[in-house]
């Protein structure tokens, strides 16, 4: 059996997807990128392949994406995250026309046509506000694990206002909210609303068309997704494998390369 690998070396995490020749997901893997994403990716690929019982010789093609894509030596090709997230999101949510991807250090909005081709896209400008890293910094300032943000958001009564989306200034705002005794749940809801409005403003540049789906690690945060859905006044479909959309798109490109060659 042949298998096809997609490797997404992001700024914060590395994601790997292994597909079979029919495009079915055989295995997936996730690891923290640390300071050497490509090395982490190589180890993760070995682990994922071993778990799926796939030998290196059975891998038909590998496509890399994400910030570390150019330094992943084992890749047959590399592709931008826009192309990969579009492909991956379309696989997960077949009728998606707008994809909002919130990654570790950037956010992107992609508009697709009926056939899944990229019509337009926009990425955040040179600033990590409105990204996963922003939430990590805020969670850290509040002494919380990121995984608890969604649960806290659900308990918010009166979301606090976080006026600045600059990571540094927002952190001081969070600290002063805490000092004034504002409930952490309300601060978290305020943070989510602040990012959502920033991402929504970005999305408006390309226009939001349903069906809207959210990908990337932050899509797992239900509190943020609900804040974004309110800002966009539109339901958001989040697939189980949303965090793997980039790697999945890369794996689909690897499969397509193979099909073309046949």
């Amino acid at each position: 059996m042949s298998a096809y690998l997609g490797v997404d070396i992001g700024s914060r995490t590395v994601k790997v997807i292994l597909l079979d020749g029919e495009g079915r997901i055989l295995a997936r893997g996730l690891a923290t990128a640390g300071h050497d994403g490509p090395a982490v990716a190589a180890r993760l690929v070995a682990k994922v392949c071993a778990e799926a019982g796939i030998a290196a010789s059975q891998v038909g093609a590998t496509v890399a994406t994400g910030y570390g894509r150019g330094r992943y030596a084992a890749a047959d090709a590399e592709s931008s995250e826009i192309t990969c997230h579009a492909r991956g999101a379309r696989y997960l949510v077949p009728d998606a026309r707008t994809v909002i991807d919130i990654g570790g250090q950037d956010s992107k909005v992609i508009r697709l046509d009926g056939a899944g081709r990229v019509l337009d896209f926009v990425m955040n400008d040179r600033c990590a506000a409105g990204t996963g890293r922003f939430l990590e910094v805020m969670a850290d300032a509040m002494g919380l694990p990121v995984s608890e943000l969604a649960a806290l958001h659900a308990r918010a009564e009166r979301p606090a206002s976080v006026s600045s989306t600059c990571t540094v200034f927002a952190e001081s705002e969070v600290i002063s909210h805490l000092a004034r005794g504002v409930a952490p749940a309300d601060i978290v809801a305020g943070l989510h609303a602040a990012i959502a409005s920033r991402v929504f403003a970005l999305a408006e540049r390309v226009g939001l068309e349903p069906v809207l789906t959210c990908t990337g690690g932050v899509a797992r945060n239900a509190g943020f997704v609900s804040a974004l859905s309110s800002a966009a006044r539109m339901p958001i479909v989040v697939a189980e494998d949303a965090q793997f959309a980039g790697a999945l798109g890369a794996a689909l490109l690897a499969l397509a390369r193979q099909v073309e060659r046949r």
Partner: protein
Amino acid sequence: MARNYPRLESGAELTRLVIEHYTQALGTGRSRPVAWVTSGAPVELLRAMDIVAVYPENYAAICASQGAVPLCEAAEALGYSRDLCSYARISLGAAAAPQVAPFAGLGRPDLLIACNNICGTVVKWFQALARQFDVPLFVLDTPFLPDDTIAPHALAYVAGQLEDLIRWLERAAGRRLNRARLDEALALSNEAVALWRDIRHLCQARPSPLSAPDLFVTMAAIVLLRGTPEAIAFYRQLLSEAAQRIREGVSAIDGERFRLVWDNIAIWPRIYHFFSQFARRGACFVADTYTGAWDVEIEPGEPLESLARTYLGIFLNRSLAYRAERLAGLIRDYGCDGFVMHSNRSCKPFSLGQAAARRLVAASANVPGLLFEADMCDTRAYAEEPIANRVQAFLEALEGRRP
């Protein structure tokens, strides 16, 4: 990064002309007065008066191509904001710290002329220069054209200021304007403009004989030497070189597959580096809104009224709708597959409204457009990885639209 563009034969002549121009501008013991002017100033009056025109904007671009962050920092150390136009910061920085500037600075002006048809910044920038060098400044105020028509009162207002400018120049130069020489300068200017237009039109050929970096470099003559016989001689040479390339099938980049339009000022310190990302994938910039801004003929008629009309109607003094339509027109006329907008941190008039223009143009021309942030000179505002990312994604999307 290696430049993957065939070198222009005319390049050597251009270098000679630019060096000669700056030698004249900086020459010690000069006999003719030197005026520092903005790019949209009516230079034909200076030609007719035998006054040397020097362009701090062009000088800043030259500085930037050699790395101008120290000059920006010199201006910032004086208190100028990092948000200020980098041409202005480089110019003010070079005036304050000529020892770290190319050619050891731009020397001293005798006169300053700022025309606000390109932006409002030039007024304050030139006022700062006037204070620093203690020389007279003339501000030519050209009202913005929100609906692209020149109202009679606006025309009279600018023509009246041109009369004032002539008297001001006559006092400074100690001689009268010779109207016959003005007519001659206007004719020389128009001839160079017509050649420049013809050269740009040749890029409608497939493959294109020239690309945006070629135009950005060779536009130096239309800026610095407009209204002189040298500009005409140079553009004749360039026109014949481009025509020869078409006859011989020589293209500006190897394997042209995509044709694109560029919007905004070039990124001078990264000019070849930046465009190589496109050239490597067969994407050639065949037209742009920047070098086209000098495609402005002075209409026949009463000279001052014609000059007023021309300098009121320049690209940046017009509505967003006009500029978007001009961009869409280039996409149609040059058969382009997409467009790229440089949101230039320095140039507010060029960049403000680009997000809206991008939507308008993409819809009317039915091609995708990329908008990215950088700066024409200040490399601190050029984020290598995010820009490369956007460029790659844009080119992949273009590829995906291929049938």
